[in-house]
Every structure is written in C-alpha cells, then in structure tokens.
C-alpha cells in the first residue's frame, strides 16, 4: 500500500506530467495514487480543493481517467467553482475538466458538456473555449446533440474555422452526404476545415469513406495553397495532418486511385509557401510517395534546419524503397 510519502511523490509527478501535457505518463501515475480506485478517488478529490490550479488540473485529469458517474458529478461541481472564479487560473482548470469529461463514457458526461456549451453560448466566449467543448462533444457524439449544437451555433458568432460549425455539419450529415459536401465547391473552404479539425482528433470508422472526397477537394485547392498562406493552405495542412494522425487506418486503406491523387497533392504542396502545409505534405509523402519524389523534396528543401530535417528524413525513407 502506498504510504503518505509515496502518494505525495506520485501526486507531484502527476502534476508535473499534466503540466507538461504528457498524458501517457499521467495515465500511468493515476492508479499509483492509492491501492484501489476508491483510495485514488479520495486523493484526487482532495487535490481538487488545492489552491494551486496546477494541482486541480491534475486532479481533473485523474478523475477523467477514473471515469464513472461519481467522477462526472465531482467534475461538474468543480466546473461551476472554476467558472465562478472568473480568472485565468479557473480557465485553465475548466479546460482540463472539459477534456476529462470528454474521456468519460458515462451519459452524464455528455449532459454536463451540453450544459457547459449552453453557458458558453449565453456569453461571449473565445473561439478556443468553444473549440474545446466542441471537441469534447464530438467524442460524445449522439443524435440528441443536434438541436443543442444548432441552437448554440446560431447564438454565437464565432470566426471561422471553428469546430462548433464542424460539429454541426458532422451531426447533420451522413457519411455519404459529408463526402458530397466536401466536394461541393460552393461550400466555403473554412467550413470544411472546421470539420477536419474535429476529425483530426477523432475519426470514427464510418467517416473514413469521406476522406477521398476531402483529398479531391484539396486537389482543387493546390494552386491557392501553393502561393499564399490563406485558408486553402490551412485546409490542406489540417487535412494532411488528419491523414497523418490516423495514418494506420486512413493511408493504408486508400484505394489506389485516391492514393495517387493524394501523392499528387502532397508532391505539389511540398513547394507551398505555407510551411505548415509543406511540412505535412512532405510527411505524407513518406507513406504514399515513391523514390522519384525525393528529387521534388530536395528541390524544395527549406533552408531552416528544423524544417529541412523533416524533408531529409522523408527523402531517406523514399530512397530506401528502392
């Protein structure tokens, strides 16, 4: 059984891991706070009362890992406390609580997030706060969310792209409809980006079939994405990043024709003036490229050593395909 000294040490390590954004390490530490979930919960609930917001963030993370209705109740109570603080400290804990709720399977977590969205919609929130809640709700997607999300979207006036709009689209459309929507040139590019921002973090199997359409949409945007850092380049960057984040499921499953189209998009975009887009394009080529693409990469190799290394690594990988 963990003694007080051990618990204090693990608690400190957990706070540090959450502070560093090191979720895998934090995940390993949570169960070590006590001999069983009940003991762990006691420690975490005590941490929620700590004056140090970093400790409260770690507690929220831990409760998200413990999951269950008790965690949801506890987190929702804490959410109200943190919101009432109205300061930067409280905001940081709110962010962590929202993320914790998104990981809890219990239906109460979704209800809690809906209430949070309602409260945001009643005020003038920053886009980043709404994005966070929309991400969480996307992980808890359910048809009953549609009216709530639509209402909030209509109430709020957020700059695009934003994930609330993306969430609305994803809730409204079937996979087939989503594919058609992605291809529709009348739909503003930034709206499509909002959808991809959600899919980048979580992609259900049912939507894998829509990706070829997004790739085709990117194909039509190569020219503007090459020449300026505008919404076309950002759309391509987010799309390529989503492909990389889910590469095991997406890139391998692509039909040959789509794969060829993606290769064309990536080959072209390594020359993009938008470095974020160019780097993702180079990384995608590692998975869909051919040895002859190495020359294209070398031609457009960035001068900055950090970025050049990304290109060099891909060149090496492609050359080894011989």
């Amino acid at each position, binding site marked *: 059984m963990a003694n007080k000294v051990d618990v204090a040490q693990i608690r400190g390590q957990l706070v540090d891991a959450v502070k560093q954004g090191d979720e*895998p*390490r934090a995940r390993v530490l949570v169960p070590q706070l006590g001999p069983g979930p009940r003991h762990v919960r006691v420690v975490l609930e005590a941490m929620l009362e700590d004056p140090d917001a970093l400790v409260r963030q770690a507690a929220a993370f831990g409760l998200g890992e413990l999951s269950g209705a008790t965690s949801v109740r506890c987190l929702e109570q804490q959410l109200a406390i943190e919101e009432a603080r109205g300061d*930067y400290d409280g905001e940081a804990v709110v962010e962590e609580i929202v993320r914790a709720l998104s990981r809890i399977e219990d239906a109460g977590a979704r209800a809690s997030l809906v209430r949070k969205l309602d409260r945001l919609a009643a005020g003038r929130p920053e886009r980043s706060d709404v994005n966070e809640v929309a991400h969480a709700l996307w992980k808890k997607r359910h048809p009953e969310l549609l009216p709530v999300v639509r209402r909030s979207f209509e109430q709020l006036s957020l700059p695009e792209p934003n994930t609330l709009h993306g969430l609305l689209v994803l809730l409204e459309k079937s996979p087939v409809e989503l594919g058609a929507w992605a291809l529709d040139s009348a739909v503003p590019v930034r709206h499509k980006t909002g959808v991809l921002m959600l899919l980048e973090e979580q992609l259900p199997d049912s939507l894998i079939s829509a990706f070829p359409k997004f790739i085709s949409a990117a194909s039509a945007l190569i020219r503007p994405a090459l020449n300026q850092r505008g919404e076309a380049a950002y759309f391509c960057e987010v799309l390529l*990043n989503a492909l990389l984040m889910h590469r095991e499921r997406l890139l391998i499953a692509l039909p040959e024709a789509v794969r060829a189209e993606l290769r064309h998009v990536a080959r072209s975009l390594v020359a993009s003036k938008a470095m*974020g887009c160019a780097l993702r394009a180079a990384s995608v080529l590692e998975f869909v490229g051919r040895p002859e693409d190495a020359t294209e990469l070398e031609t457009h190799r960035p001068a900055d050593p950090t970025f050049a290394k990304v290109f060099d690594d891909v060149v090496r990988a492609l050359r080894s395909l011989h």
Partner: protein
Amino acid sequence: MKTDTVFSRVLLPLILTLSAACTTSQAAMAEGAAPRVVKEEALPGGWVRLSFEPIAPDPALEVMELEEAQAVLTVLHAALLAERPEIRVLPPARFQLLGEGEEWGERRLRERFQARFGGMLLSLPEDLEQSRLYQALKLSPRYMGAGVREAARELFGSPVFLASVSMSIAVYFGAWLAPEPLFSKAFAVTLTAALALTVGMVEVANLALACVRLYWESEAAKTERELEAASEHFGRAVGGTGLRVLVMVASMGLAKATPAVPGGGLGALLGGPRYAVEGGLAVEAAATATVVANRSLILSGVATGEVAARLCGGLALCSTIEGKPSGSGTGAKLSTRYGSPHTRQNPPHNEAIEKELAAREAAGHTQLRKNKAQLDAQDKRVLERGTTGGPRFRKPDVSSLRPDGVRHNTNYVSNVRDLRRELDAFEAMKRLDPEAIHELYLLDGTLLRRHVPAGVSLP
C-alpha cells in the same frame, strides 16, 4: 561608462535564493543538509567578517555530465552570438562556430569582461589563442578526474569557453596573486559573495590559486613539456565543483544578468547554496570584499541580520540600490495574474512569464495563455503525431495572439540541466506550428533560439 554606474542604475536580478532553484536543484537540496549558517563578526567601521567553515564537497557536484557541458556551451554561444546573427552555432555534440576564418568576437568578449570586472590583473596577448595560458587550458582536460573529463573535453574544445576562462583568470582569479585579494567592483564583490555562499570560500580560493599557478607556470614555460606540466597541475587540481565554479565565472563576462546563483540559467549547475547568512546578505553598490586566509570574507557596504531580512525580503543574497532589493526568493510573492505559478519552487520563472504576459497585454495581444496547451493562430490545438511515450501536445510558458493574428509562443529555461529537453520542445513546437513565432530564453533574458516565420516582422 563605468560598470558600477550601470550596475547601480539598473535593478539587476542579483539573486541568491534558497528557493529559487529549479526542480533539480531543489531535489539535490532536499537530499543534502540545510545550508550551514556562516559565522559572522562585526568589525569596527561597519565592516563584517564572514567565516565559511570548510565542509565536505557535495558528491553530486563532483561529477559533470557531458549534457551539462553541452548545455553550458549552448548558453555561452547564444550569449556571445546574440549580436552576430550571421554566425550559426551547431547543436550540442558538434559545437563549432560556423563561418570559418571569421572573427567570432574575441575582442568584444574581452571588452565585456573588462567592463564588468575592471582592468586586467594579469596580462594576456591581444590574440588570446596565442597565449600560453589558453594553450595550457586546452590541454588540461586530459588530467582531470574521470567524473568530469568528458564534460571538460567538450567545454575546453570550444574557443568561446577557452577565451572566457582565460579572461576570467586575467580579470578575476588573478586577484589571488595578492595574499588578501581585494574586490572593489560591485560586480566582483557580489560574484565572490554568491560563490562563497554557494560552494564555500575555500573551494573558490582553491580554484583561484590553481588558476594563478596555471598562469605563472604556463607563462614561464619554455618547452612543450613545461607547458604540459602546467596543464597537468591545473587539471589535477580542478574537481567537479571547481569546474562548475569556473563555468560560472567564465559565463559572467557574457551573461546578461549579474550573479544569480542558483537563480536560473547556468547558476543551476552549482545547485542550492551550502551556506547562509542569518537574515540574508544585502550588498550595496559601493561594497568591497577582501578574502582573508582563504576562508573568510571581510565585507564593507553590506547589511546582514534583520536589516538584510527587511531589505532582501527573505533572499539569501540581494543587491540593494536606493534601498530597493532586486531579485526574488522564498519571501517573494508569486504573481498569479495570468494563472497559477508555473512552479512554486521557481519564483523567477513564474515572474518572467507573468512579466512577459503583462507586456504582451499592454501591446494589445489577446488570448494570453500561461502554460496551456499549444494552439495555432486559428485556435486549433496543435497535436503531436505519434503518441508513444511523449507528450501529445506542448504547453508553452507564454502564448498569445498578436494584433496582426500571429501566434507568439515563448518558453524559458530555468535550469541549464533541462536545456536539452527545452531545445527539443522548442524544435517540436516550431515544427508543429511553423507559422507562429517561437522563442526560447534563459531567465536572465539571454535569447537561445528564435523562429520568426517568413514575412512576419518582430518589433
């Protein structure tokens, strides 16, 4: 302009705190004994004698890792080259200055040492690399103990480090030529007091005597063998702690801040202070210090006890200019305007973040984020691909959105031992969001890395 004038005008972070150390140093302190109280004796004329009873060396300081040496060089090179952006520094392990045949700033280095410490106490030729002292220093790592040899090779392989050590010997350690070394420059007084409190006067004096001996023996050497012998005497006399002190003094000619041991940056190499003056030690701009019998310091222009406690607010060492203390420490209030303290163990780190965010707020930045998940300019969380073991997202110390919509992220290194990790984090953040401005600073304001996207201006 005289250095001490500059010194007296600017509230420089002269900090020697028990609590301001980074996490690693704190851990080291927790494992070791509490600082030993220095024996204090009031002398006529307002002078104070501080006696530092010798204590056993800290085993943790007697070893120096290669990574620590590489971090030292990163900091030194960044400090020297801050004004020479045309010269690039390669990453650690392959240190060298690019731009072959280019003068890397030896003259400027010499000027900066002299401005801070005063005139040359020992003469050196115009071209430092031609001096016998420089040559002997270069050979010395081979005679150092196994615990530091590899790190010393790395350090003494750098022309910047060698030149800095040569200058340190000429402008500071050379004072030990006199039986009772005297320091009248506020900078040197504070440095001596800081070093004495951190490792003890005996350790500092031993290193100084080894440096003076090296100078005389190398200058007198007529053959390669004699030069080698001088080098050997020096190498065998310098242990891990001595090497760390040498690094500290060598860095002082280049660092932006005055002695801050272990308040941040390279100061962390020395760990927590091993001695403390009751109530603290407040050093005035006109202070002087004399080293007596190599274990005592006789100081003028300083306050101790209750007066120091009032002036320094709980700091172990502070400088007082017009009655105001500079620095922060145990008693310092942690600012939390933009969020909870970055770490309670490191107030200067937290204060640097808060100050930066306040400046950005004043400049019209929005989304003032302190140690929160990295976002891009579109408020999208920037995720790291491949989640095996590492963080899925980074948390910059400071992040904000400029009025022109450019995201600006800044991190601070408070412990040089963490430099490798911080450089990796910098590279990762830059790779993940190339359209943002990214910066990495030491707490003393030394810029280590900066990325400004093409087409973006930096005021």
